C-alpha cells in the first residue's frame, strides 16, 4: 500500500520535472565544468574584453594573413582613382573561376541586383529597396576597378561586403559582374 503510493509520488515528481522543462531556458547538464570551456568561446562574454565581447575588431593598421594592403581611399576621389588605376590580379580569363563567382554573387548580390544584374532582385520586386542600378547603366560605366572599390567600401546606400568576402572572392565576384555587364549590353 505505502509502496504503491511512494512509487506513484516518484513517477509524478519525475513526470512533472520532465514536463516543466520550459522552452526558453536551458536544460540541466551532467557535468557543467566539462561542457563549458575554460578557453574563450568565439562569441563569449568575458569581463576582460572591451564591452565584454570576445569578438574583436582587429587593431587599426593591421592586415590579416592572406590579405594585402588596399591603398584606395573610401571617398569619391578614391573611387575615381580606383576606376582608373585598379586592375584585377587575374590576367587571363582562364584563371577566373566563374562558377564560384556566380555562387558568391547569387548569395550576396542577387537579392538586390538580381541574378542577371539588371537591378531586379527580389527585394526590388517586392519594393523593399528601390533604385538599384543596372550594371549596364551608361552613366555609371563601371569597370573592374570601380566594382572592386564598390564591393570593398560600398557606395552611398550600398554597404560594404569586405567583411563577408575575402580578397580572392571579391575579385571573383568582380569578374562575374563584368560578365553580367557584357551579357546585358549584348
Amino acid at each position: 500500500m505505502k509502496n504503491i503510493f511512494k512509487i506513484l509520488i516518484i513517477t509524478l515528481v519525475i513526470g512533472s520535472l520532465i514536463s516543466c522543462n520550459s522552452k526558453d531556458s536551458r536544460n540541466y547538464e551532467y557535468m557543467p565544468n566539462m561542457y563549458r570551456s575554460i578557453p574563450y568561446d568565439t562569441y563569449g562574454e568575458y569581463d576582460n574584453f572591451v564591452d565584454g565581447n570576445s569578438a574583436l575588431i582587429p587593431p587599426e593598421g593591421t592586415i590579416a594573413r592572406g590579405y594585402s594592403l588596399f591603398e584606395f581611399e573610401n571617398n569619391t576621389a578614391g573611387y575615381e582613382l580606383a576606376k582608373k588605376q585598379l586592375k584585377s590580379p587575374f590576367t587571363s580569363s582562364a584563371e577566373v573561376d566563374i562558377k564560384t563567382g556566380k555562387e558568391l554573387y547569387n548569395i550576396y548580390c542577387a537579392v538586390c541586383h538580381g541574378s542577371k544584374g539588371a537591378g531586379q532582385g527580389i527585394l526590388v520586386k517586392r519594393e523593399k529597396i528601390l533604385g538599384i542600378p543596372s550594371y549596364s547603366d551608361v552613366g555609371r560605366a563601371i569597370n573592374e576597378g570601380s566594382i572592386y572599390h564598390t564591393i570593398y567600401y560600398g557606395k552611398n546606400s550600398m554597404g560594404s561586403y569586405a567583411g563577408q568576402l575575402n580578397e580572392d572572392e571579391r575579385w571573383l565576384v568582380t569578374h562575374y559582374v563584368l560578365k553580367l555587364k557584357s551579357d546585358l549590353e549584348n
Partner: protein
Amino acid sequence: MNKKYKKVDSKFYLIKNSKFFPCISLGKLLLPLAFIFTISSFGQDADPVKGKALFNSNCAACHKLDKKMTGPALRGVEDRLYNDEGLDREWLYKWIRNSSSLIKSGDDYANKIYAEYNGAAMTAYPQLSDDDLNNILAYTAQEKPAPVIKAVEVSPTGGNTSNGISNEIILGVFAFMFLLLSLGLFVVNKTLRSFAAQNNIQLPTKKKSTRKPLWKAFVDNQFLMLCSAIIMLLVSAYFVYGFLMQIGVNQGYEPVQPIHYSHKIHSGDNEIDCNYCHSSARVSKHSGIPSLNVCMNCHKSIYEYNGETTEEYSKEFYDAEIQKLYKAVGWDDESQEYTGETQAVKWVRIHNLPDFSYFNHAQHVSVGGIECQTCHGPVEEMEIMYQYSPLTMGWCINCHRETNVKVKDNQYYEKIHEQLSKKYGVEKLTAAQMGGLECGKCHY
C-alpha cells in the same frame, strides 16, 4: 570574420555632419507664388506616373521624396531651387545629366550642395531625355498625400472584450451563489441533526461489512502483488531513463532574443540566402552571427516594416524592433548619420555543443554539401529561432552512417574514394566508412 569591419566603419562616417537642406524663410514667403509657378511650368505632357517609375528605378537609391537619404529629399525640389536659389529647369537638366561637370564648371550652388553632402557624388544620367526629366520633376512636384486616418473599429472586437468581462462577472456570481447554497445546506443539515439529538431519534448508521474489501484481497494475493510491482518498477524505470537521457539535450530551446529578428521574414518571405548573414559557414568552423553592419546594408534603406502582419505581431511591433537595431548601431534615421554611440546586441546562443566535441560547419556545408535545413530544420518558417535537432552524439552518428559522401567533382576524394571503395567493395561511401565514427574526429 571581423577582419575588415574597421574599414566599414570609416565608410559609416562618410556622410557625417551633413545637415538638413536649409529651408530659407524666403521660400516660405514665396510658397503661394511657387504653387502658381508649378502649375504654369508643367506642360500637359509631363506624366507623374511615368515619372514615378523612372524615379524608382534611377533615383530612389539615393533620394526619397520626404526623407533625407544619401541625397536631399526631393519633394518640390524645382520650386525650392527656383525660389531659394533662382535656379531654373535648365540648371536641373544639367545637374541631373552630369552633376560633376557642373561642379567642375564652378557653379556656385552646385559646389555648395556638393560640399554640404561631404562630396558624395551623384550619378550622371546622360541617357535621360528632357521628357523623362520632366516626368520625374512632375512626380517630385506632387503634393504629399494627407495621412490616412484609420477609422477606429468599434464593434466586433470591442464587443468581444466587454463580452469577456461580463462572462467573468456572471461566472463569479454563479460561484458566489453556489457557495451560499452549499453553506445553507450545511447549516440546515447541522440544525436537523441537533434536532434529532434533542428528540432522541436514532439515525440509521451504516453496518460494517464483513466481506474483505477488494484491495485487501489484492494485497493478500502474493502473485498479483509481484506482477504489479514489476510493472510499476518497469514503468518508473522507463520514466527515469527518459528523464536522465534528456538531461543536457536542448531540443526545442527557444529563448527570447534582444531584437525580435524573424528568419521567416528575411529568409522565407524575402528569400535572403543563409550565407548572406552567416557568411563564415562556408569557410570556417563557426557559422557566426552577423555583426550589425551587415544588417545595415539593407536597413539603411528599410526603415519600416510593410510586410504581412499577424495578430500577435503588428506593424508597430516590427517597426519598434527596427528602431532597436538603429539604437544599437547608433544610426540616426532623421539625419541619416551615425551618432557613434553603439551598444552591443547580446544574442542568446541557442545551438551549443559541449566543449569536448568538435563540429565544423565548412566541413559539412562546403565539402559535404549538406543544406542548412537538414540540421537546423525549416528555418525559413521560424518567426522565432529554436533548436530543431537534438545535437546528441547519436544524432551525429546516425547521419554519418546514412549519408553518402559527395565524392563526385571533388579532387580531394579521388584517390581515397578509389581505395576505400575497393576496401569495402561498394560504389558509394558513407561518412561512417570514411572514418566518421572514430572518436578522435569529434572528441579531442
